[in-house]
């Protein structure tokens, strides 16, 4: 009874931690100072058909005097292709893509499975049970196969092995342990529907020790992921949207202009030591 209640609390707390730490990291990245422009073309938001070949507003004479053409549809399509299909990896390193995409697809499907389990705990038609079971099987299989392939590739590819730290092996092994213990528990020990139902309703039903271990690993993983570099799901948004695709010019009255003026109140406290560098006098954005 006590263990079961604790599991309920831990699951909910771990999910909250995952969301909270993710939000804090995203906020910290967002609040970093306006940076120098580092765009790389193609920039998919460039309108007028320019995104297709990598063109920009710089192709227009007196570009600053003309309204910018922004293609939000192209930008959204491009980021969805990256998020859902990891297109750059597909285009540039197909052999690794199969494992990586399988793994990430599995994770996405597992999120969907988790959502279905939550819904099922409160509304449980037979069709939903079938759907959730199918989604769960698909998620576990693809994520586990992907993770295994990624681990093997890192272990046996002589280039990747040279650059992979023990912590990075640990990350994959950690996720694999959660996946494999989950496969074991939900296929041989307990029904995920019953456990989800008990956890979400704080029913206090006894849980098999195997399930407790799996859920403990899962909770630890939910807290660890946003703290580790596996939180690249946060970084990827910023590296594309706020660095590579961020080409907004500093024109009078623009949001860039406003941010630059706002930054003048924050003088840098650190300065460079080389003789030719003057101590900073104003904020350089």
């Amino acid at each position, binding site marked *: 009874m006590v263990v079961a209640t604790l599991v309920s609390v831990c699951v909910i707390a771990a999910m909250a931690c995952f969301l909270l730490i993710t939000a804090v990291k995203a906020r910290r990245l967002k609040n970093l100072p306006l940076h120098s422009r580092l765009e790389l073309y193609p920039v998919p938001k460039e309108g007028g058909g320019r995104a297709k070949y990598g063109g920009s507003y710089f192709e227009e004479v007196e570009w600053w005097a003309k309204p910018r053409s922004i293609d939000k549809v192209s930008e959204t399509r491009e980021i969805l292709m990256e998020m859902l299909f990891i297109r750059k990896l597909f285009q540039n390193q197909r052999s690794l893509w199969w494992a990586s995409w399988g793994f990430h697809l599995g994770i996405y499907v597992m999120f969907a499975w988790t959502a279905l389990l939550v819904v099922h705990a409160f509304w449980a038609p037979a069709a939903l049970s079938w759907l959730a079971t199918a989604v769960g099987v698909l998620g576990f299989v693809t994520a586990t196969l992907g993770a295994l392939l990624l681990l093997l590739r890192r272990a046996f590819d002589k280039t990747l092995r040279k650059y992979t730290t*023990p912590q990075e092996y640990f990350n994959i092994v950690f996720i694999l342990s959660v996946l494999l213990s989950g496969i074991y528990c939900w296929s041989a020990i307990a029904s995920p529907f019953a456990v989800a139902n008990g956890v979400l309703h704080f029913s206090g039903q006894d849980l098999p020790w195997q399930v407790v271990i799996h859920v403990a690993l899962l909770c630890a993983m939910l807290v660890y992921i946003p703290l580790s570099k596996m*939180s690249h799901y946060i970084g*990827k948004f910023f*590296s594309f949207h706020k*660095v590579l695709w961020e080409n907004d010019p500093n024109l009078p009255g623009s949001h*860039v202009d406003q941010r*630059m003026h706002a930054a003048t109140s924050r003088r840098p406290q650190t300065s460079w*030591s080389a003789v030719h560098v003057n101590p900073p006098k104003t904020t350089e954005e």
Partner: protein
Amino acid sequence: MSVSDKTLMPKDISRPKAVLSPIDSLAPLPAPYHDVGAEPGFRAMKPACAEEHCASLDGFVALDGLRRPQSKKEEDEFVRAFVSGVSKIFADSNNNFLQPLHLTMDYCAKCNTCSESCHIFASSNGNEVYRPIFRSDILRRICKKHLTASGRLLGGFVGADIDVNWESIARLGELAYRCNLCRRCAQTCPLGLDNGMIAREIRKVFSQEMGIAPTPIHSKGSMIQLKTGSSTGLSKGALLDTLEFIEEDTEEKTGRKIKFPIDKKGADVLLVHNAGEFLSWPDNPAAFAILFDEAGVDWTLSSDMLGYDGVNYGVWYDDAQARKIALGQFAAARKLGVRRIVVGECGHAHKASAVSADRMAFAEDKVPVESCIPVLADLMQSGRLKFDPSKNDFPVTLHDPCNIVRQMGIVEPQRTILRAICPQFREMATPGVDNYCCGGGSGFALMNSYNFSDFRNKVSARMKFTQIINAFADEFENPDIIKCVCAPCSNCKGTIRGVFEFFEATAQYNVHYSGLVELMVNALASMSRPYLTFEPEL
């Protein structure tokens, strides 16, 4: 795969060895240069010079201002300054790069997707030290060890495994100058991370904290520019003399009389060239004058401090230098009261003034900057310039300067021009934003200390030379056919000139290079004599 470095790992950067990873293999060039053994070899560093500087990375020296310490105390101070500098790239002293820096340092998945996109890595047949993540991972591991609690507590488990000493730091400094900053690797990264930017951050630590940078781009580059007005050392008086000479020479050679407008207050356009054009390729500023005069553009040159040289070497290695130069250039434009700055054919000057400097000054303190390329395309398309394409009836291909194309998105206007004026225009393989660097980017074109020009000619420019040969296919080996590479960038032209000389491509196969405006003037209907004579380079 290069032979000597199959097992080399980032932590080996501190391994005691005379040369950590010599270049023992090169990618083959197409015919007629397919016999790698037949091309001139690398010049070895003189032992005394190698000992004085750091030639222990790959046998080349770029950082000619970096000298081996003479005492333990000097080495300790060197290490302290480097670690201090590294800490400062994560502090508010580096506000303008914090976000992209954190992203690349924190999120690299070591998937190695970037490697194959790097022309230097490919040209060296995969020399491990040139792998884009090799350099970044060394910095990452040093940061872990010296700047993070996890590194101090968990050490090698989190990758904090690199010992910093003079040799490892000096090698890393050299390694930052084995990257052209073309950022082609960043284009392929599934996480959108930027190893080119990391190379530049390392350069910044060396320059801004330790005062160490290659002489041609710092003490004889940006410092000279801030002192005299131009990185060439060209003073105002010398500029005026040079322009007068170009006017006379142009009239003598072409029969066309030109007069450079100087310091014309309130002109519509301030045209800013790379001042190297005045000295090395005077036909280029003369061609601009012919085109702008014929089209009736209201334009001027500046003779004011920093107003007549658009280069800004700071963008390659030092934010402070970049900012001082950029602000000086804006000041010169404001003083003349021009409506806009048009940047001539210089790639890094394009990026420096239009992109990098965009957020160095408040909007009201700037003058709008645009590239000459769309301006020229507009003059052609609006009918203000008339061409006879038959004058350019020889094979022409186009080199896309990274700064103008991949990093600014100016792709089509130059193609619109070339398609109209060059009947035999053809693209290189992987054109446009996917194109390869000329091999001279980020200062390499200017760096000739010791044997560094061998690295440029044989390694960093190898992919571009391959593309050029392939673009002309069967015509390449026929010396009776003039072939021309259009390279609308001074540094790219300088690099291509060096490669053509090194491989004797002009002398043997009649292959030439040119800017865009020279080709335009050559095809100008009103010109009575050819503008391009395609004489062998002397």
